[in-house]
């Protein structure tokens, strides 16, 4: 049971982490799909 709960917790942590890392390192959809003449934010 403990291993299972830890794994589910890890799944959430990994997902939130992956999202944050990818967004911060320029992999958000906005970043990927902007042309050169666009300034985001």
């Amino acid at each position, binding site marked *: 049971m403990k291993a*299972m709960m830890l794994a589910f917790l*890890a*799944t959430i942590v*990994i997902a939130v982490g992956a999202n944050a890392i990818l967004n911060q390192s320029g992999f958000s959809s906005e970043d990927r799909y*902007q042309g050169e003449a666009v300034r985001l934010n």
Partner: protein
Amino acid sequence: MLTRLMAVVTLIALLGTNPALAQSEGAVDAPDAPASDATTLEDILARQRGEDVERTNRAAEGSSAEEQARGMLGTLGGASDSLLWEGLRFGTADITTQAGGPAATVLVQDGGMLWVGWREGPLRTYGGYLLLGTIGLLALFYLIRGRIRIDGGKAGTTIERFKPVERFAHWLLAGSFILLGITGLITLFGRVFIQPLLGKEVNAWLALGSKWIHNNVSWAFMLALVMVFVFWVIHNIPNRTDIGWMLKGGGLFSKNSHPPAKKFNAGQKMIFWSVILLGGSISLTGLSLLFPFEMPMFAATFEKLNAFGIPGLIGMEPFPTVLAPHEEMQYAQLWHAIVSFVLMAIIIAHIYIGSLGMEGAYDAMGSGQVDLQWAKEHHSLWVEEKQAKAQSAPADATPAE
């Protein structure tokens, strides 16, 4: 402009998917005396069947006298609507946009009709029936065979089957796979099942949430896949006991039949290798979809398959080896979904046998401790090995004190 574009895209979509129109192809007469460079309905239908239709680039060659005359009257000056649409459709129009990436300047992509048709047709239909059929077969198996009991009755003593870290990896894999499966199915079926039932708002909300979960939970699945592979590959190399196990149907179909097996029996080895190979393929195509246009892999794969003559073996033309960026993504999506359906069907059976279908099995992944009698019935050779080790261990071991 946008509404017109949508109208044309819809028209193409209707032509491509409407069986009535598709069937009447043969009955279509060529229009009266078409100008030599004009596109006929036949040409259009042939293109939609994916055939190569020779085409003169009218915009580049200068338009016919008729078009020039039309142009003088038109609001676009010398450029006619049809020329503009042709340019958009065949990628010869000069498009500037503030959007980036290879997709930005492609406003019409003919090849995509094949993909849309597949995704909305056979993929949903056969994929859906595969999952329902699997559940149906399992229900039938349950009705006939019932829960597979521990024939000898519980021993009351237990033996360790999986260490905590192995169970952690299993549940990381299982939890993420189930989330990915559900959100993937919502993405594919939401529009046909959820939207009519709960409305567009709910479907849109679910689709957005599903996308977030599907994209980000994928990493947990990939990590778990590597962990499970490292932990268990050694126990999943096929060996001679697997043949005996298979010949007896694993003892799944009759009481008191318990073919010997080591840590994993042949059935479990098949599950393991399906998870590794199909899960690996799903991960690769998933990455390709997650980073659009960055990791095209189908043209290269098709080239290899052609080199081995695989298409010929199944009576097909060689696969295309030059693919537009969009087509790469479309093949990735189809393959990702097809393989996922197969793995989901396999895993549904696995979940059944690991929980409801067999007494005592769940404990292996629950507490990690299984009943000794269960272990003897299902993994006799493994128990013998483990007990032999346990007996020899105290003699070999150096006491801690």
